[in-house]
């Protein structure tokens, strides 16, 4: 079933459709939430609330063109409302790491982990990457950019970007290898 059909099915009280939307969008929303704010507990709570409200108000759900972008917009609003302005930390694509008060991509990766041991492992792994390597990893895996797009932004060739990502992954796997 397509997502718009599922969405309409929720309006018709279909719990199965709701489950399906929840499961297929969770990680998509989570990654987005982590981009808006690096606090994973806050992001988890916001997504939970978002879905509870969708189900509670299922008879009043609007028609939407893209379920994903609709959910992202509400999630963003929720997260912004939660966080007092002075604590605001945004992970803007180009300004990340510029402000000492905000969480960088690497901090977010570490904070994401459930247990201490894993946190330390991830930290160690990330620290072994060069600044450039971490940047291309972020662009490739977090911003979901193509090699051509990253190459354009960095004024280099896709092949070079690929090699940078590949080398970075090799290092990461070496450090994280025991986990898998």
């Amino acid at each position, binding site marked *: 079933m397509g997502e718009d059909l599922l969405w309409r099915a929720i309006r018709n*009280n279909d719990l199965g459709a709701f489950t399906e939307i929840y499961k297929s969008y969770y990680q998509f929303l989570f990654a987005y939430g982590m981009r808006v704010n690096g606090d994973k507990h806050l992001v988890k709570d916001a997504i939970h609330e978002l879905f509870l409200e969708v189900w509670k108000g299922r008879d009043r759900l609007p028609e939407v063109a893209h379920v994903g972008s609709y959910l992202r917009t509400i999630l963003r609003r929720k997260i912004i409302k939660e966080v007092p302005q002075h604590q605001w930390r945004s992970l803007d694509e180009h300004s990340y790491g510029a402000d000492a008060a905000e969480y960088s991509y690497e901090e977010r990766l570490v904070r994401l982990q459930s247990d201490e041991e894993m946190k330390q492992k991830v930290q160690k792994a990330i620290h072994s990457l060069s600044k450039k390597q971490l940047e291309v990893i972020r662009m490739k895996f977090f911003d979901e950019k193509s090699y051509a797009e990253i190459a354009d932004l960095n004024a280099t060739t896709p092949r070079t970007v690929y090699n940078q990502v590949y080398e970075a992954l090799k290092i990461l796997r070496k450090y994280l290898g025991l986990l898998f």
Partner: protein
Amino acid sequence: MDYLLYEAEDFAADESYLNYYFRLNKTDIAFWEDWIRLHPEKLDLISQADHLIGLMAMQLPDEELQDEFRRIERGVSQQSHSPEPRQQSVSFDNVLRRERGRGWRRLVVALSAAAVLIPLGYVYFFKPHTDDARLPIASAGAMLERTNPTSQPMSMRLEDGTFVTLDPGSKLVCPAHFPADRREVYLEGGGFFKVNKSARQPFYVYYGNFVTHVLGTSFTIRMDKRQEQVEVAVLAGKVEVYKRARVNPEKEPRDQGDLVILTPNQRAIYKESEQRFETSLVEKPRPVRPDTAFLETPAGDPGATVFKTATLADIVRSFEKTYSIDIEMENEGINNCHFSGDLSGMDLYKQLDVICQSLNMSYEVIGTRILIRGRGCN
């Protein structure tokens, strides 16, 4: 691009693979789903690649995701207000199964009734599946359940490293932590398993009213479309399949017909109507290990299957080894026949077709064996 030589980081850095992972491109999605299905031996690497990507892409760790899912499940079931009261008793997860056959529908009814009376705990999810009161899985501790609500196969790794690919609409229930002496999971629908070897922790898959006892291997379990029979097919290793009443297989005598042991390329089909297992060969036998001793392999093409005036005895021995299937000759003279030809890219049955046709012979699949018939050569 030779994906067979890929390491985990090669997959994780591959643009086409990432398009599949992030669901960005339909062609790539179709290609990789196919490729992964055809190369079960690469599942370890694929899952390592997925872990690597998931980590960098900031996905919520799996165990926390399961917690969140249970939280929304509780949240939704606690909502007393409902616009259409008649739907109230529908529980969260079982709606997905409503398209299934009659047996499943009965199950859904049982689950819905349970959902009204008690707060939805995951333990209750598998209780109604059993025909007897006894739970198949030691019920101590929390249970995890994973459903695949998507239309694509969904891969996951269990605590012990076992790799599972759930078919669309299927569900796996397992303890949050396996006890030290056994690993038991509960399956609905169908799936592929690649079980990590562990002699001290045998692995059991409970499915309907039968049990698959795994001896370190990979295999699939699924129900046919008409839901009248269940099939267990083995890709590698060895599994033992028996009916559910045998709770402790070590202590009971084993009767013919309700316990079968399967080796690669063999399958057991359990027919509900006959209540017994039948063994046969899988529809498309796959090479278990390549055997090139008798092949004239052109340089640089290890996948080629070319025979040059090889005796049938040698060819058959090579097939037996490659596919782990017993092949018998109707008479000794067949061994003396010679065959030359290029059988590259053909599956086993097609190869046998070509050989038999050129020598004016025939073959027949009888149970788990293949019999070659013909007059033979001098």
